[in-house]
């Protein structure tokens, strides 16, 4: 089996070496299969799990998030921090803080799956590396801003909500759409 210089296998060996060269030379004429990355980019598949964003309503531009905290509970690395105290009068949650620490996030997509309100999504964007650790902590404004142009399918049950008072989109407080108590459990 073992070829070598010392026996008659030498012709076989030379033949094998040339057959290897032949296979390699087949690739001489073809195009490169790689891309010159920063100039050219792949088109990411629709399901590609990149950066986590908060989605806004397609019509009025307000956050879809109802601060039900399902995503926070689903997160395996505790990357999502939500602070939404209940209003003592209306019993509704007020989104005070929504932060995602991308230093902790493992891009598993469980938050997106847990969400019943089409509010959080792993978008196909991916270039957000940074040398500064603090810059990985994104607050609600940034999450919403990055998610503005992300296309999504609105799976919320359309329930007519009386238009709320004007809220600027970049403001941290989101208008409440539905009572959370009944929705929070049907995960």
């Amino acid at each position, binding site marked *: 089996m073992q070829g*070598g210089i010392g026996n008659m296998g030498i012709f076989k*060996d030379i033949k094998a*070496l040339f*057959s290897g060269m032949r*296979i*390699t030379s087949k690739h001489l004429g073809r195009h490169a299969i790689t891309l010159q990355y920063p100039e050219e980019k792949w088109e990411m*598949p*629709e399901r590609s799990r990149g950066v986590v964003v908060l989605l806004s309503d397609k019509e009025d531009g307000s956050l879809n998030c109802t601060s039900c905290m399902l995503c926070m509970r689903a997160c395996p690395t505790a990357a999502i921090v939500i602070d939404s105290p209940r209003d003592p009068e209306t019993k509704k949650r007020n989104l005070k803080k929504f932060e995602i620490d991308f230093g902790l996030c493992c*891009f598993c*997509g469980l938050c997106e799956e847990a969400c019943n309100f089409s509010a959080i999504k792993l978008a196909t964007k991916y270039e957000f590396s940074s040398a500064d650790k603090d810059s990985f902590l994104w607050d609600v404004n940034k999450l919403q801003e990055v998610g503005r142009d992300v296309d999504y399918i609105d799976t919320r049950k359309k329930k007519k909500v009386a238009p709320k008072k004007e809220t600027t989109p970049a403001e941290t407080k989101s208008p409440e759409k539905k009572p959370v108590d009944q929705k929070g459990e049907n995960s």
Partner: protein
Amino acid sequence: MSDLRTEEYYLNMGPHHPSTHGVCRMVLKMDGEKVKEIEPHIGYLHRSIEKICENRTYAQCIPILDRFEYVTAMSCNYVFALAAERLASIEVPERAEHIRVIMLELNRIASHLLFYGVTAMDIGALTPFLYGLRERESILDLFEMTCGQRLTYNYIRVGGVSRDLPNGFIPKCHEALNTIEKKLADYEGLLNENPIWLVRTVGIGVLPAKVALDYGVSGPCLRASGVQYDLRRNDPYSIYDRFEFDIPVRHNGDCYDRYLLRLDEIRQSIHIVRQALDALPEGDFKAKVSPNFKPPAGEVYARIENSRGELGVHVISDGTKKPLRVKTRGASYNHIAVLPAFATDVLLADLVAIFATMDVIMPEVDR
């Protein structure tokens, strides 16, 4: 020359040696170029995955276990889901089972292609690395369009899979399989007869079947030593008993056989994926399982055959939504443990070949 006094000396191989596939340190007792003793030191990649899993719900464990054996993360997803399903007696829909088999086998092909490239590169042939990774890319593209990630999939869930197959998956999958099948001839043409490759692998690192069995070696390394043992046959899980495939076996147990056997397995996996694609039924892709489901108290050991060997997970449940204990078993651990038993009296360069063809990856050893 014979009266020259020689002295044995110790040599550190690793932890950052490029051919240790991760960070493994091997303290070698050398006599000239010959390796006399091997003492593997592990633990450089320990991430306490088992302990982390104890503080997560069953659904949250799966993305953590992705990092357990990231070259075939689908099988890690699957084995944990299998354990949880057995604990909670969850019925998995037919379509989900077929999708799982497709994914597991595609992942096996991807892993073997990586093996092909990396082993060849370790031994000194650079071209196969580019070839192997190129075809692996087509499989990773399939995974990316299905679940969104290329390495840590988090796709197989307790009770099914997270999403249905996307549009255009099946033709693209057939296309990728056809390409790989065609390119396998290229792979073999590059290396199988290559005299340098033969000198470096034939008869090197012979692992006798008895030693392999004693040390719990499994998977392709065991089958290359002549033991026909494959959990897909010997302890069928999922729907593998419905598909027709061979378990390739080779008998010399050297590096060359371990390499050839994996190429054989790629063919068999292609065969399985094609059958599963053809038999893919309509229906649900996931059973209704609450993310915080509580399996009854008890314990279960689930094991599957992944590309390296027996991948097992032992889950103990105390009836709460989090597992009480998770113990994982990776084949690579045994593949490292067996090295001192058979890889002695070889040249240092051959040890690299042996280590590469055992297909050890360190995250599976250290967890």
